[in-house]
């Protein structure tokens, strides 16, 4: 395309572009979707080589317009003829994708010269069986947050989202994340940190189960970010497939309850022949990724079952007494947790039994901080998973 100098622009007008999607890549990027750091999307079309440069046409494009292109409803030629902001950029890139020359053309002028073939259509929803790490990195920078992307695929999830995916995957993953950050939502004192980090799920899509978990990026005076360090340990754990590294990774996360949640996730992957992809991106462009399929889940589960047949966890839970039965040989208790919809039932330890008569126990709504030990017994071929709770101590909560 021959262009007059009056249409020339400084190359800085188009900032640094990052590839977020390949719409057509045949040994060469023919049609891509690219993003600026501020999240502006461009459709980038390769026209030809000219004097060792790549002649490419760019238009700014909305996600809604992209959907039409991906579905084949809108041809690539029409997308350029009817660019949303009425401007087409004509770009010359060198072979390192550095923009060397930049021109613009109003759409009506471009459409009269548009060399793109009439019937060039994508007509193929790009395969999203991966987690686009570049998208996560851009999102992380845009929001200045840590973004953990997850994608769970399984045959049973193809037509609709199933309850097991929420119960045995999403909930344990969310809890693992919180626990790795040292947050126990059952405990009032941890809620400040939870609020400060503003942990939340965004962009949840139900085709299989895909979404992002986001949390604030809080660094100390030295620029260190404790969340990244702790979350990276979760990825070390996810990527551990031999006994030695698995034991070391578990020591590093230093929270036995994580193991229980991890087992839930591994079980759901294994039982449903699912594939789990997770990636973490930080505003500092650090990335961590993992992939767990049925074979890998079974391999890890085998090691865990051998090494940790019983997982012990002690936690402090705010709640109210519902019941104390001292009339039986091993007295039992029941308490409802304040911050979760769950009633803990179990046995009292002998140490606590000695203290019980000294306590002024109130069953009429008084709040206590309970110290509860839980033993998680792994599922075996002959028995299902079993959890046992033991009340170690309790203190009255001051209002």
């Amino acid at each position, binding site marked *: 395309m021959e262009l007059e100098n009056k249409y020339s622009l400084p190359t800085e007008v188009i900032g640094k572009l990052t*590839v977020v999607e390949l719409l057509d*890549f045949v040994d*060469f990027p023919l049609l891509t979707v690219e993003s600026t750091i501020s999240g502006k999307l461009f459709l980038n079309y*390769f026209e030809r*080589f000219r004097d060792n440069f790549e002649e490419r046409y760019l238009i700014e494009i909305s996600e809604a317009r992209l959907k039409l292109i991906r579905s084949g409803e809108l041809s690539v030629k029409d997308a350029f003829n009817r660019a949303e902001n009425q401007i087409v950029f004509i770009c010359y890139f060198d*072979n390192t994708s550095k923009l060397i020359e930049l021109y613009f053309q109003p759409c009506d002028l471009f459409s009269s010269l548009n060399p793109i073939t009439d019937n060039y259509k994508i007509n*193929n929803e790009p395969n999203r069986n*991966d987690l686009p790490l*570049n998208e996560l990195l851009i999102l992380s920078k845009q929001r200045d947050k840590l973004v953990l992307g997850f994608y769970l695929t399984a045959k049973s999830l193809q037509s609709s989202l199933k309850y097991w995916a929420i119960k045995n995957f999403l909930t344990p993953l969310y809890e693992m994340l919180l626990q790795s950050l040292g947050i126990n939502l059952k405990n009032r004192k941890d809620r400040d940190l939870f609020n400060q980090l503003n942990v939340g799920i965004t962009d949840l899509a139900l085709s299989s189960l895909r979404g992002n978990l986001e949390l604030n990026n809080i660094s100390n005076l030295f620029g260190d970010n404790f969340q990244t360090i702790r979350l990276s340990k979760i990825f070390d754990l996810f990527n551990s497939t031999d006994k030695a590294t698995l034991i070391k990774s578990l020591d590093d996360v230093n929270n036995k309850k994580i193991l229980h949640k991890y087992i839930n996730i591994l079980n759901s992957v294994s039982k449903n022949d699912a594939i789990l992809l997770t990636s973490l991106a930080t505003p500092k462009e650090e990335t961590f990724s993992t992939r767990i*399929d049925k074979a890998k889940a079974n391999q890890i589960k085998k090691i865990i079952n051998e090494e940790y047949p019983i997982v012990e966890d002690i936690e402090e839970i705010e709640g109210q007494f519902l019941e104390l039965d001292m009339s039986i040989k091993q007295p039992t208790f029941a308490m409802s947790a304040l911050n979760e919809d769950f009633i803990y039932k179990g046995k009292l330890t002998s140490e606590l039994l000695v203290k019980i008569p000294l306590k002024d126990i109130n069953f009429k709504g008084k709040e206590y901080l309970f110290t509860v030990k839980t033993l998680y017994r792994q599922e075996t071929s002959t028995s299902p998973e079993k959890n046992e709770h033991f009340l170690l101590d309790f203190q009255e909560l001051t209002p």
Partner: protein
Amino acid sequence: MYKELLPNNCPPCDASEQDIILFRAFYNSDSNDLANYLSYAQLHTENEKYKNVCRAHGLSFFDTMETALLKTKKLDVHFIAKIQIKKDFGKLYLTNKNDGHYTLWLYNTFSSTNVKCLEINEIN
């Protein structure tokens, strides 16, 4: 395991080893020349933009001669070869079922001298 250092989660999890006959565009007529089996990432080592793009580390193949011709007409290629892909070449993935476009990520054991070319046609 792979000839190139691949980005995370690459190739896609459902890529598989296959024995299959496919078509590929070549720069020259020697089907055993390694130059015909270099990925975009290998050909553009100084280009950082596509370093983390999985498909930039793979090779494109098509299930028909016509599509191979059509999809590569803008590239500097001169031949279309009919190739017997073997399981030990690497992992293959149907990138676009509508145009029969496959991407192959080569194992480090791949040698171009072992490729069996069934037919080769010069592009006019």
